């Protein structure tokens, strides 16, 4: 470091600025977080999509104008296909193996961490397995195949995550929770640490919304479902199911933790669950923590499996019963093997009972297994509506377009065209939706979207 001649302690300008610049580098390095904040990539993608919008809108507008002059028909196609769909989240897996199908498991039964590009993280316990079932730009549909998983879901706009555990579905916005599913014991546990989740499945006539600290346990074998309050923040530990009527006072310290798990602290909820009598006849055990039994159903699980009767049962209003029967039989097997009419009935049952994600799964199976049938065409329309309902209008638009392409004279054509018109208007502006409005008024002059179509044509 050079010093000026008249004052040995005085730096020359170059050395002075070099020293400060070095200090500035040190401060920047100390402040650097190492990598951008969780979700930064996802937000960048969202910004790119927004920036792509105006250019596409211009393109769509020009295409629409041209097609109006050419009688309007082609605009329905051109106006929609240019819209850019959001890209699905991506993820990486630490300490685990993943198959192309999205099936994830820890290497040699060790824990594994799955981190999504929006910052959501899932920690699989030792021996746990999980599948990434369906992607989405704002979340994913996941399935806990076996074992325990800890979820930290980022709370971002339009976040849409669902976790399937056996026949149960946990719907998530942004929260921290644990899920365990044991296929051998037919036990589902959901423990909520932060936020809010909505659980649906057998023995729940409606969705159960959990609050922080609550712990839901469902035992399918004994038709037992309960929600414990103040279950604490301890992770779910593996609790052996009551193979026979459980002793009323099983010792609380016998719960075996999973291999590799942290030493468990005594867990009131787990103790409660283990001590819960499987039938009403057994005497209840004194609770350490307040427990609220949501349902205690002591009748045996429905043994019948009669998909040929589903259609009639749905018509008679037993949609929830049909869904229960399907999930009890094994949804994968049903989706893979049921005949066309049964799948249609199951999709209807799922929609009517609010099991939207299950409905999507069945509708997709309809299209895959019975392509070209009227049911597959109708499935496209219903998939569009379901996408609309979960806040994915572009995806919905794509499904409506498919429906109109495949069955232009189908029973839902008016509804599909009307929804297409509104979606294009919302996403790309009124001028882009005008060809659709013209088409709608021509084909359905007394349709339910009549006023919307007129408003689009009369607007600026």
């Amino acid at each position, binding site marked *: 470091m050079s010093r000026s001649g008249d004052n040995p302690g005085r*730096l020359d300008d170059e050395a002075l*600025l070099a*020293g400060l610049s070095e200090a500035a580098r040190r401060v920047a390095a100390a402040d650097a977080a190492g990598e951008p904040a969780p979700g930064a990539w996802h937000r960048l993608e969202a910004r790119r999509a927004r920036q792509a919008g105006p250019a596409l809108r211009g393109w769509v507008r020009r295409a629409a104008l041209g097609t109006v002059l050419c009688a309007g028909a082609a605009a329905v196609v051109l106006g929609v296909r240019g819209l850019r769909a959001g890209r699905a989240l991506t993820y*990486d897996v630490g300490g685990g193996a993943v198959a192309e199908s999205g099936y994830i498991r820890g290497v040699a039964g060790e824990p594994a961490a799955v981190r999504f*590009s929006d910052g959501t993280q899932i920690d699989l316990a030792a021996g746990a397995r999980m599948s990434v079932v369906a992607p989405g730009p704002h979340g994913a549909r996941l399935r806990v195949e076996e074992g325990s998983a800890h979820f930290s879901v980022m709370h971002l706009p339009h976040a849409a995550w669902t976790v399937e555990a056996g026949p149960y579905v946990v719907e998530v916005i942004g929260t921290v929770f644990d899920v365990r599913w044991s296929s051998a014991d037919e036990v589902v546990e959901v423990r909520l640490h932060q936020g809010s989740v909505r659980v649906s499945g057998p023995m729940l006539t409606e969705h159960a919304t959990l609050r922080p600290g609550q712990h839901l346990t469902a035992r399918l074998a004994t038709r037992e479902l309960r929600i414990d309050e103040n279950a604490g923040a301890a992770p779910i530990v593996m609790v052996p199911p009551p193979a026979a009527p459980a002793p009323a006072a099983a010792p609380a310290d016998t719960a075996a933790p999973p291999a590799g798990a942290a030493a468990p602290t005594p867990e009131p909820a787990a103790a409660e669950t283990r001590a819960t009598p499987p039938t009403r006849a057994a005497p209840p055990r004194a609770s350490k923590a307040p427990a609220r039994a949501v349902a205690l159903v002591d009748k045996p699980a429905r043994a019948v499996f009669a998909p040929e009767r589903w259609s009639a049962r749905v018509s008679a209003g037993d949609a929830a019963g049909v869904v229960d029967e399907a999930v009890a039989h094994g949804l994968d097997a049903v989706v893979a093997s049921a005949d066309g009419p049964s799948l249609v009935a199951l999709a209807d049952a799922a929609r009517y009972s609010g099991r939207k994600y299950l409905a999507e799964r069945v509708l997709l199976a309809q299209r895959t297994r019975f392509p070209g049938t009227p049911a597959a065409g109708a499935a496209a329309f219903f998939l569009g509506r379901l996408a609309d309902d979960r806040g994915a209008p572009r995806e919905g638009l794509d499904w409506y377009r498919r429906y109109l392409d495949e069955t232009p004279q189908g029973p839902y054509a008016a509804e599909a065209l009307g929804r297409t018109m509104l979606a294009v208007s919302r996403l790309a502006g009124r001028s882009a939706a005008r060809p659709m409005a013209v088409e709608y008024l021509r084909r359905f002059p007394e349709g339910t979207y009549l006023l919307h179509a007129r408003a689009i044509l009369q607007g600026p």
Partner: protein
Amino acid sequence: MAPTPFRIIKGAAAKPPTDAEIAEALRRGDREAELEAWNRFSPGASEMLRRLLGPGPDREDLLQEVFLRFYRRIGTLREPAAVRGFLGGICIRVVRGEIAGRQRRRWLHLTPTGETPDAPVPGPDVEARDVIARYYAMLDRLSATERSIFVARTIERLTLSEVAEVHGVSVSTAQRRLARASKRIAALVRRDPDLVRLAGGSA
């Protein structure tokens, strides 16, 4: 719409591609490479933005802007192996634009300092950060281009020819502006004993 398959971006068996391979994939328009580029380069770009801007909260908006331009302009990169320098040049230009905007806001009296209000982020060495923040405040008294040239040369340690290329000026112009900026900043720094001490000299 058929679901877009998830893509594995890292895994136990994955062999990481080189910087040049990522750049080449981006130039081919391979969208798969975009996330890989983000994972590889965003930490460095984020730190470089900190060096260029000085202490303060994370500026994810600027990092996004950097990568938006990076993806848009990757086709103009001549040498794939120089992708980090290419990205660094974009960082410098983005920050220069940010500083110019800040100066315009200050001139228009939209905010007292020209900075948009952000919550300060405490760090591990508060005293040094405060002093360095004063140093960056002095840099902000330069014009946006002079500040950018000065920071690129002294803090980012780019060569003069690199500085000239990034700023679209000749080497001699860059040298002249750098000398002018250095003289002015040195004079300002000498009035602040803490800064002189931090630089390693006596006040």
